[in-house]
């Protein structure tokens, strides 16, 4: 807005006028003064001319009256002479008085008045004489005048002489010289008069010429001066008009080209002007707003009214700039944010007060500002409330920003970290690495730290170091690379990790100790096992050695190889032999069990026919059965081929069959066997061999069935005395069958009999193995 330029122009109007008028006035006064002076001079000169005329006429008249008087001798002629001669005498008195250095102006005036001059001419005559008396033309006139006065004095002397002669009644002849004398004086005066008149005429013409020249010069000067002043004034006006035009044009161009809307409020006349842009800015058609201040005021947002009024008041009263942001309602009813600026302008008169201003639509900027402020608020709240410490470091290693959490983290007073060097939070020993890392990063962008999170040591304000986790990123701020670091105190985590680590170490140590203990125990157990095995082997050997003698020599004796024995001897030796056999069986069973439980029992893989095994076992025990009058039935079909440990299968069957015979007093013992197809056809095996050993013996009580296959259990200890057994047989059977993938079970009815059943997998017979056979 062109605001400040017009007021000085208005203020400069008065001096300009003065500069225009004053020279003209001075010149006019000067010209007028000159004119008046010249006119006064001219009139004074004319008065002298008139005076000279009267002087000449009076002198001539005096001479004539004197001549008349000489002839007539009449007093009235004398009186006429006296009256006529008074005029030159008055002039003479004035002249002589004026020639004095200190003239008595009253005498001068009286002299001139006596010279029959007009009273009004007297001051001018005095001025002319005094001012121009030394001028040549006046000098000549005065000299002439003075010469005339000498002749007049001679005339007066002659007159006096004549008058005395007349008085004395002298004769005419006596008067003749005097009369001649008068005529001569008159004759001398005549050229003097002519000269006087001529000099006065010259003076008058000079005065006239002077007047004309002066007036002409004054008029010319006045005209020239006026022309000059007028020209200057006109040029200035022209410049002003041009400037105004230019200013107006610029203003118009500015208004058209500017995004600003302009307004002006003539406070004194209560009128307003709104530029078209002002209106279009609000979505109004140009010319819509009436030229009244209220037109814009009505569009102002109610919440902004007070602020606008206060700003205006401050501007008008204290001269503070009027520049505020407010809302105006647009044509569409939406509020537009505008920046409103105004400047008051004082016109030339006190009541010419204008307020000129502009508005610019900042709705978008305002919205952007609001969005920015919201974003700023959001990020500031994050910045200030996050537990993570945030540091922003420039390339100069100065802390540019640090949030409250950062101050807390490093133990510094709030707001003190900003501008500090990084070394206040960085231990000296990490300095070189940091500098090298930053330099490397700036050189080729490679990071030696993982930006996602690295653990480093930090320096606390109290001097101690603590571990922290840092994640950082690089960004640009004002064209300068910045590093933003997110930091977290991980002291507790470190301690927890250390504790965990320690606990793990302790646990590991304990595990190792336990492992060592277990290993030792295992070694001891292995040693024990070895010792046990050695013991068993030794025991076996040591027990067998005497048994060799016992069984061997009783055998020799019973066979009569050492001489005949009677029946009783034979029977008793049988007891010894049976006891030895039983002892041997016990030893063998114990050895087998020991080997099974230590996992050293091996299972042979050989092909055999169960029917053969059954026949063999039956043959082995048939004498015993027959001895007890028992029927021993073996109903086993031939061709039940098994792939396995033949000796163990035999051992199991022999054991079961032996038990059956042992616990059966009368009746029968039967062995049956068949192949049971697998329940699930999908099974690849060839089914299972099912073997039953049934007897008609004493049977087993139900409560004993569950422990029947456990070690060292013999059913009903009371019966044990009658039925010798190791108590290991059934347990050994179960173990052997389990080794071979089989199982065993029993069903029994006390007093009726028992049936033991076992099953074994039938191995599929391969053609190759078939042919080997």
């Amino acid at each position, binding site marked *: 807005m062109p605001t400040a330029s017009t007021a000085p122009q208005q203020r400069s109007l008065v001096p300009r006028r003065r500069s225009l008028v004053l020279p003209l006035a001075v010149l006019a006064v000067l010209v007028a003064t000159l004119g008046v002076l010249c006119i006064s001079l001219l009139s004074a000169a004319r008065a002298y001319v008139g005076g000279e005329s009267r002087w000449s006429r009076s002198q001539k008249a005096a001479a004539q009256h004197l001549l008349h008087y000489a002839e007539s001798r009449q007093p009235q002629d004398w009186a006429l002479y006296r009256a006529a001669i008074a005029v030159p005498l008055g002039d003479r008195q004035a002249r002589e008085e004026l020639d004095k250095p200190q003239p008595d102006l009253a005498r001068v005036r009286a002299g001139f008045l006596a010279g029959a001059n007009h009273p009004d001419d007297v001051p001018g005559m005095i001025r002319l004489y005094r001012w121009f008396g030394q001028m040549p033309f006046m000098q000549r006139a005065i000299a002439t005048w003075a010469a005339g006065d000498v002749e007049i004095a001679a005339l007066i002397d002659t007159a006096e002489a004549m008058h005395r002669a007349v008085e004395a009644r002298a004769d005419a002849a006596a008067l003749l010289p005097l009369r001649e004398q008068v005529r001569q004086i008159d004759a001398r005066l005549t050229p003097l008069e002519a000269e006087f008149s001529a000099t006065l005429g010259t003076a008058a013409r000079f005065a006239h010429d002077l007047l004309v020249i002066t007036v002409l010069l004054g008029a010319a000067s006045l005209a020239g001066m006026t022309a000059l002043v007028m020209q200057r004034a006109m040029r200035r006006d022209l410049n002003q008009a041009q400037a105004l035009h230019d200013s107006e044009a610029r203003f118009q161009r500015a208004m058209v080209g500017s995004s600003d809307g302009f307004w002006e409020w003539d406070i004194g006349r209560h009128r307003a002007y709104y530029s078209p842009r002002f209106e279009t800015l609000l979505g109004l058609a140009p010319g819509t707003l009436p030229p009244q201040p209220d037109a814009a005021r009505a569009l102002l947002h109610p919440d902004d009214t007070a602020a606008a009024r206060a700003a205006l008041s401050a501007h008008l009263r204290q001269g503070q700039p009027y520049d505020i942001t407010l809302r105006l309602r647009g044509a569409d009813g939406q509020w537009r944010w505008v920046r409103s600026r105004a400047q008051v302008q004082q016109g030339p008169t006190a009541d010419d007060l204008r307020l000129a201003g502009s508005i610019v639509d900042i709705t978008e900027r305002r919205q952007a500002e609001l969005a920015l402020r919201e974003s700023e608020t959001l990020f500031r709240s994050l910045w200030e409330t996050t537990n993570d410490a945030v540091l922003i470091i420039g390339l100069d290693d100065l802390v540019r920003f640090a949030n409250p959490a950062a101050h807390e983290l490093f133990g510094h007073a709030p707001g003190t970290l900003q501008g500090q060097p990084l070394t206040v939070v960085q231990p000296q020993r990490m300095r070189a690495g940091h500098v090298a890392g930053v330099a490397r990063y700036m050189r080729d962008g490679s990071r030696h730290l993982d930006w996602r999170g690295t653990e480093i040591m930090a320096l606390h304000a109290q001097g101690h170091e603590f571990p922290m986790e840092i994640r950082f990123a690089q960004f640009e701020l004002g064209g300068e690379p910045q590093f933003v670091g997110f930091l977290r105190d991980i002291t507790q985590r470190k301690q927890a990790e250390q504790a965990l680590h320690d606990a793990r170490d302790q646990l590991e140590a304990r595990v190792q100790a336990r492992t060592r203990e277990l290993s030792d125990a295992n070694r001891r157990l292995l040693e024990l096992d070895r010792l046990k095995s050695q013991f068993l082997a030794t025991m076996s050997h040591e027990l*067998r050695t005497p048994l*060799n003698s016992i069984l061997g020599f009783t055998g*020799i004796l019973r066979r009569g190889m050492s001489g005949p024995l009677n029946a009783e001897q034979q029977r008793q030796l049988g007891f010894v032999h049976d006891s030895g056999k039983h002892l041997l069986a016990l030893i063998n069973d114990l050895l087998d069990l020991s080997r099974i439980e230590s996992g050293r029992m091996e299972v042979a893989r050989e092909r055999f026919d169960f029917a053969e095994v059954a026949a063999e076992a039956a043959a082995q025990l048939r004498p015993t059965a027959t001895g007890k009058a028992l029927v021993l039935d073996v109903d086993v079909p031939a061709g039940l081929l098994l792939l396995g440990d033949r000796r163990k299968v035999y051992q199991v069957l022999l054991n079961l069959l032996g038990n059956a015979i042992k616990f059966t007093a009368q009746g029968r013992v039967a062995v049956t066997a068949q192949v049971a197809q697998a329940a699930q056809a999908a099974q690849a095996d060839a089914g299972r061999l099912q073997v039953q050993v049934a007897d008609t013996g004493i049977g087993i009580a139900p409560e004993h069935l569950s422990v029947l296959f456990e070690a060292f259990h013999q059913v009903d200890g009371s019966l044990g005395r009658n039925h010798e057994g190791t108590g290991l047989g059934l347990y050994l059977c179960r173990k052997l069958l389990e080794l071979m993938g089989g199982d065993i079970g029993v069903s029994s009815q006390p007093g009726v009999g028992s049936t033991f059943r076992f099953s074994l997998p039938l191995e599929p017979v391969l053609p190759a193995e078939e042919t080997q056979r």
Partner: protein
Amino acid sequence: MSTHVLLVDDNELNRHLACFLLEEAGLRVTTASNGPAALAAARASRPDLVLMDIRMPVMDGYEATRLLKADPALGDVPVAALSAHALPHEKALALQCGCIAHIEKPIDVETFVDQVRALLPPAP
């Protein structure tokens, strides 16, 4: 000349029992009570069969068998272990040392002689 069996056993009763049975069966039996003695006896009079006990003082049967088998003059004399070591690994070890069979003690009086005869090499 009858078949000559060298019976090696440190136990006098065992030697007595076996000698009785073998001699009853018509075999000539010489005895030794430990390994070195057995080697000396075999070298002195080459037997047709050696019945070697395993557990013996001075030198056990395994070692004696190896030495016997290592002797060029006696390498082809069959040796059978005759031992109360009834455990399978003991039997296996005996076979490894060069024994052709293992007869378990206590011996079965009724079958012992047949077992021994079965081990004798066929008469030249």
